[in-house]
């Protein structure tokens, strides 16, 4: 069976929906909390504080989302689970790379602790994760969760999980 992966709206929604839930919650709970605790207060004085609180989460999520998008933009990955072959196509550079699973030297999968343990996602960026695929011939590919939500190729002990509080790829 052949699987095709690329950045999809569904995956983007899966990753980004957390912060939108937070936004929805703030819009609903913000006024409720305000009127419960300070019925005679001025709500407009409260809005800047709400905004600051929201931005504390929105900025990191947006930054990581845009970074992931820039990494995998115009990329496409095809995986043949019978032949154990991966084809990575860059439609912008018009290049195609093909390699088998046995050519993989390492896969380092970086994710948050909650995501790695498959428990309740805690921070709005908890579902963001990326895999670095190192081949024996020196080639390297990075697949983010915008392409494949959780990439787990059957490569045995070549697969390793790294946990990070904020899985932003620096290099």
């Amino acid at each position: 069976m052949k699987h095709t992966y690329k950045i999809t709206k569904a995956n983007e929604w899966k990753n980004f929906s957390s912060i939108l839930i937070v936004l929805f919650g703030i819009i609903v709970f913000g006024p409720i909390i305000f009127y419960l605790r300070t019925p005679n207060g001025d709500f407009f004085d409260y809005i800047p504080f709400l905004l600051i609180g929201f931005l504390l989460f929105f900025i990191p999520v947006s930054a990581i989302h845009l970074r992931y998008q820039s990494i995998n933009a115009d990329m496409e990955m095809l995986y043949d689970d019978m032949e154990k072959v991966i084809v990575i196509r860059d439609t912008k550079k018009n290049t195609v790379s093909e390699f088998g699973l046995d050519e993989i030297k390492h896969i380092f999968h970086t994710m948050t602790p909650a995501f790695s343990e498959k428990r309740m996602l805690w921070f709005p960026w908890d579902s963001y994760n990326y895999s670095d695929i190192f081949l024996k011939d020196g080639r390297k590919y990075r697949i983010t969760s915008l392409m494949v939500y959780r990439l787990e190729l059957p490569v045995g002990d070549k697969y390793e999980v790294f946990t990070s509080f904020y899985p932003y790829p620096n290099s």
Partner: protein
Amino acid sequence: MAYSGGQQVFSPYAAMGNSPGMMIDPNGELTKDAQPVQDNGMDYAGLDAIAVRAFMDGVMSGLYNINFMFGSNTMVMASGGGSAGVQDVGQVWLPKYTDNMNMCNVFRAALSDVPSDIVGIKGFTIAPDNSIYVTYSYVTHSSRPSEEGEDGGTYNLIDQYALSERTTKFSLPPRGDLQKQQHGDFWAILGYVGMGLDVMSNTAGTYGKWEQTIWEMRNSWRPGYTAPLSKWTSVAKVLSNLGWSIGIAGLAHDGYMVSQNSMSQIRFTYHLGGLATSTYIGAKLGGWYGAAAGVIFWGGEQAYDRVVEPYVVEPARVDFNYKFNLFINEFINKNF
């Protein structure tokens, strides 16, 4: 394999510890590890022979807290003395997170889910959806009437044991740090509390299992309610993020109160610290622990407002002011 309890001769594999896949006995003198293993090109669920060998070395040296030998591609389980060669595993022993996740997953699945009659894993495959299909050997038992002259006529029935194979699909644990999914200190502390209660009720040590109980508390798998969420992941995601929005809205309101001089900065800092601490604990250990930390902070504030402040701080303040004023008055009256 011969059954040692019913015969005068041991299994032909006894010389290599009943594990010909793992041990050799070339001169008939002493069993030793079959080292070194060369990569034979075989693919054991994505691992070569050397990787399997390395893992099994870890198993045998106790690295993974597995208390019995469990071969990956051969029947292993030393004979239990004169009785049948099946030991009661008794408890689930888990490998720590290692560089060999497939093996860990197989062992984890096999150790936690296998029926009690298993005597060894023969082989396994990992499907593309990460399900594990393990083929294992198990003991079948039957009896037959003794034939004339057999066993000296001592027994009416002769027990017969044989090995059969079965393939079963096992559940796959999540990848990641498996060790963290064990009970950890919380349940160990609970175990100590239970022991204390035992002492108080004079039933301590009745079963002589104190240490074992604590060990099990620390190292057995979490029960379902703290197990990783599966079907409920979407619901949990909504709940956690709504929780965040309430936290943000509440903290923003605190900031607003401080700006209106309606809340002290110390109290705001306490709220901020409470949110950060409960968040950290929740992210590190799990949602329930984070919620418990939040409740503790909330309880601390309530205790201060309702008990400490009116009954301790305020009387002390009044008393201090009274005595201080008295002292100042006396000082002024005496000296001026």
